[in-house]
């Protein structure tokens, strides 16, 4: 391995190789491989039921893949020897339905993992949490409970919750799909700012505006496989597969430019 190759590999934050997942008779993932370099943003698109969310869950092992390997940096998190809690702490996950801890204020939602998982002191965790809430523009809502926040605000708190663990990458599972149209913008703004700050992000989303603004690559999945991937302009302008073009047309119609 020459020096250049070595550097390229060491910059890899995430390496997913040949992941398969079957639910009963349903072969959801049929051998998917993805690589993420530090600071990269990739967007996964594709018809529903194609395994996009399952892929994200297989990456942080919320779902155990049947086959295949996942490396976070140098350590293989699919290996049974690896402490999965420790690995998950380094991978942020943003859910479609936010899943904020209902019984905790925004501040507590953000600081609970630093305190309970990383054993950070309360004062330090509070400071960190306030900083992350500030980052998503919600410092003034620190004492609000999730039920008192709008969907967009809840999703921003959940992004702050992920950020508080200083993750090596963040996975976004359709982060704006459960939101009213007028609330999507505020969440995308936060995500775009994060991408520009150099966060490594893998997002399942059909927000092509977001993809165009910050994605290094769009990944088109169908039938449990990656059909095609490439930079946004390339994929949009000359898709290699007819299906990619068809699908892109469809979501452009639905979501606008």
């Amino acid at each position: 391995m020459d020096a250049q190759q070595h550097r390229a590999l060491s910059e890899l934050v995430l390496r997913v190789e040949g992941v398969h997942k079957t639910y009963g008779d349903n072969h959801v993932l049929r051998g998917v491989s993805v690589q993420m370099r530090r600071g990269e943003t990739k967007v996964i698109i594709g018809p529903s039921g194609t395994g996009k969310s399952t892929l994200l869950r297989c990456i942080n092992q919320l779902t155990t893949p049947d086959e295949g390997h996942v490396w976070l940096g140098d350590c293989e998190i699919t290996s049974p020897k690896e402490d999965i809690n420790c690995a998950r702490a380094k991978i942020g996950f943003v859910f479609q339905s936010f899943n904020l801890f209902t019984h905790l204020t925004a501040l507590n939602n953000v600081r609970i993992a630093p305190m309970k998982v990383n054993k950070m002191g309360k004062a330090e965790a509070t400071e960190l949490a306030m900083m992350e809430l500030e980052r998503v523009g919600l410092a003034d809502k620190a004492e609000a409970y999730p039920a008192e926040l709008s969907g967009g605000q809840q999703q921003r708190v959940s992004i702050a919750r992920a950020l508080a663990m200083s993750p090596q990458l963040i996975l976004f599972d359709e982060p704006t799909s459960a939101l009213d149209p007028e609330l999507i913008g505020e969440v995308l703004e936060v995500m775009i700012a994060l991408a520009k700050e150099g966060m490594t992000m893998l997002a399942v989303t059909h927000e092509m505006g977001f993809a165009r603004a910050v994605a290094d690559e769009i990944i088109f999945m169908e039938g449990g496989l990656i059909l095609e991937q490439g930079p946004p302009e390339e994929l949009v302008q000359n898709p290699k597969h007819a299906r990619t073009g068809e699908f892109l047309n469809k979501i452009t119609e639905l979501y606008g430019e």
Partner: protein
Amino acid sequence: MSTILQSLNLLITRGLPTTILLTLGLLALGLLLGFPIAFLQVYGPRPVRWFCRGYEQVFRGVPAIVLILLFHSGLSRTFHILLPAFVSALLALALRSSAYQSQIFRGAIQSVSEGQMLAARSVGMSKVRAIRHVILPQAFRLSIPSWTNEFSSVLKDTSLASAIGVLELMKQATLIFTRVQFIRGAQWILVILILVALVYWILTFVGNTALGYLEKRTRIPGFEMKGQVER
């Protein structure tokens, strides 16, 4: 009037303490047993889940009076295990309550949405930590209204202990009216029964109010729940 006051005095000094002790004791024992049973029914390995389910089904499916007699006369006559009447009643009612309480807690744990566990795991919490810091605090709040019902239900069930001679409110009331009816006439049976009913009602009211206060104190937005009907 003085007969009423004397009766009330007897009920309160020689019946009420045992009723309260029995109620608190059986609720505490029921909680101590019921909570782990609920926990194991949700998170335990399959055979343990089956066992807990069986336990809960048995003790919910048998009348309280049958359990009380079983723990008293049943045990003493057959196995020569002679438990004091109070202990028999306490055990019988506590085991029964533990079955009901386990269902309250199981329902509460299971009504915490699956996304909460996923989110807790996603930030690196172990399953145990997630249960402790995320699931149980929510389940606790969700269980208060049903637990209030359980309280008011078992409080009145303690009157069944009178059947094996535990000197609690109901037994004391019986003792009073059997005597008073000969001195003052049969209508006094009614008077004494109304009196004891009133004492039970006040106890229930005070307990429910206290638990309502606890519910209010621990209430947070998103957990508004009204108490359900009594069983």
